């Protein structure tokens, strides 16, 4: 599901809508904008090494691999229906704005400043959360990142996938 993930049930969307009223008006006003914005790229740049721990290269090619994941997420989001893009935009904005990020994740610092341990802890909390809303948000991020990396041929040698057959 190259990118995927539409997000919230109606009731939960209402709750999120309440949270969204906390967003500064600039963030809310761009809610129907393009694919990824600067803070969204920072979010995925921080999440990719944690979600993909043990899968990403560890040498000089690591930064390029992380950048490729972020670019893959951006392409995938741009290919989704507008209604799904709007839901993702809401999630990204809530995670990009410190006060709402704090409410949802317990993290105040900007994404690049958060330690991998604290990122891991928030992701594990969301994955097992009693709130369906947070489980859904976890799988939205999960699906975007794993689809971006494992859709990329540079991830294939490590997993023993030879790539599609060459046709003569």
């Amino acid at each position, binding site marked *: *599901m*190259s*990118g*995927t*993930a*539409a*997000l*919230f*049930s*109606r009731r939960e969307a209402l709750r999120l809508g309440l949270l969204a009223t906390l967003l500064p008006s600039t963030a809310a006003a761009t809610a129907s904008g393009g694919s990824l914005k600067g803070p969204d790229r920072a979010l995925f740049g921080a999440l990719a090494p*944690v*979600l*993909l*721990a*043990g*899968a990403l290269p560890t040498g000089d090619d690591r930064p390029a691999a992380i950048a490729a994941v972020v670019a*893959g997420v951006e*392409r*995938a989001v*741009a*290919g*989704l*229906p*507008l*209604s*799904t893009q709007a839901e993702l935009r809401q999630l990204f904005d809530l995670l990009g704005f410190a006060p709402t990020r704090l409410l949802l994740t317990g993290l105040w610092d900007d994404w690049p400043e958060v330690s991998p341990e604290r990122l*891991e802890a928030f*992701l594990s909390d969301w*994955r*097992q959360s009693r709130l*369906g809303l947070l*489980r*859904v948000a976890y*799988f*939205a991020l*999960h*699906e975007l990142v*794993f*689809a971006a*990396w*494992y*859709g*990329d*041929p540079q*991830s*294939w040698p*490590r*997993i*023993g*996938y030879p790539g*599609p*057959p060459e*046709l003569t």
Partner: protein
Amino acid sequence: MTGLLPGPHNVFDGSAIADDLHLAADVAVVGSGAGGAMAAEVLARAGLEVVLVEEGGYNQAADFTLKEADAYQELYQESAGRKTADKAISLLQGRTVGGSTTVNWTTSFRTPAQTLAHWAEVWNVVGLGPGDLAPWFAALEQRLGIEPWDYEPNPNNAALARGARRLGWRHGVISRNVRGCQDLGYCGLGCPVDAKQSMLLTAVPGVLAAGATLLTRVRAERVLQRRGRVRGLECRALERRGIRPNGHRAMITARHVVAAGGAIGSPGLLLRSGLPDPHHRLGKRTFLHLVNVSTALMPEPVRAFEGAPQSIYSDHFLWPGGGKLGYKLEVPPVHPLLGATVFRLHGRLHAEMMARFADTQAMIALMRDGFNTHEPGGTVRLRDDGSPELDYRLNGRLEDGLKRAYLSMAELQFAAGAESVLPQHTEAQPYRSWPEAREGISQLAMAAHHAGLFSAHVMGGCAMGQNTKQAVVDSRGRHHQVEGLSVLDGSLFPTSLGVNPQLTIFALASKLATELARELGGS
């Protein structure tokens, strides 16, 4: 016709048009998948003027890169990420010329006699018993090369056969609609060697050869009607990626419209059209063959990305009796992008599972939903922007079926020699033995978003039947309230089937369209 950029034959790409289109036809058919392509071909060959409208692009063998990142965006609804309203179930549906038949795994079963009997008995479907459909099945099997897979099953399917044999569970060989199959394993990304006898290769060329017009990247917006009689179809052309309308419309004047946009698209079209629905049946009773997944690590390479994706099945638990929900056991192909998203883990654990990607065997169970009054199915409704979405909720019966299916899959995988089994559920962990798995699975809660759930078989929503209080259309697929409107796709089904649906849709669409052609004055 104005502003058209003609493609080969009589194919027009909506993303390339520079003006609104105005077309006239006897019949406008919405959707070029299993139902729409078959129906359009029958109607066009009978001499009727037909316009076939497809939301996706005209992708053919040379366009199929076999890369998941390309294929899902280009060939599937919502980049293969379509989901139910609560996001708990992922829905795989084609959106390309040929519809889901272009990307399905070629599995072909006749409709079970039990299913047809249930439709007649409970849903007042007439004239569609096993005997009525048998000649249609026989002709289609011949035409589409449908035969039991004659070659060695790939190791993923072989594990299903081995486990079932050791446990004494009923199982069999799957029939596939292929000719000259090279056993590549990439059916889900479009057949690159034109072996799959999909609509793309069979009925769509038939439609074009009979002189009909095909519009691609054009979305049907609403059925036009006046005083209960259909007048035509209003459509919007889409930009290249198929996400936004490009500002141009296609207006098709027609005396008959066939809705065949799949079991989310067809109810969505009818809902947008504001047609009478006095008993509130439209969009109701949508079924999924709800699927859960269990993966196993095998001591030998499985390479589930290679070879015919589905060649073995087990119906041991399909008709269990005792009022329980039944399920069918099959295996899916496993490619890295989709495979990686199915694992409900992250970090090191995920990386360890992926490191043994080539040793991974995967099983799926398909719930035969809709045969019991406590299996009401889901509801298709419209979002604010007019796009359709499916609301489908779990309940106790489904949860019980899912849990029994996790148990069956794990038991079978250990019997087939698995080192470990991981049900795809957030609370599960890799189990090392069948007793450990049995204990672990019995503890799993089946709440939404914990079990990884899927469907590639969306069915129902425009149910057929003679009782206007139960059904949207009659047993010929004609709308109960509106003249000149038919539904001829999987949304006709009053329940799920218990088998993969393409052959049932081919047969119903061919038979019902043949009767429609006669009535519309075709030869």
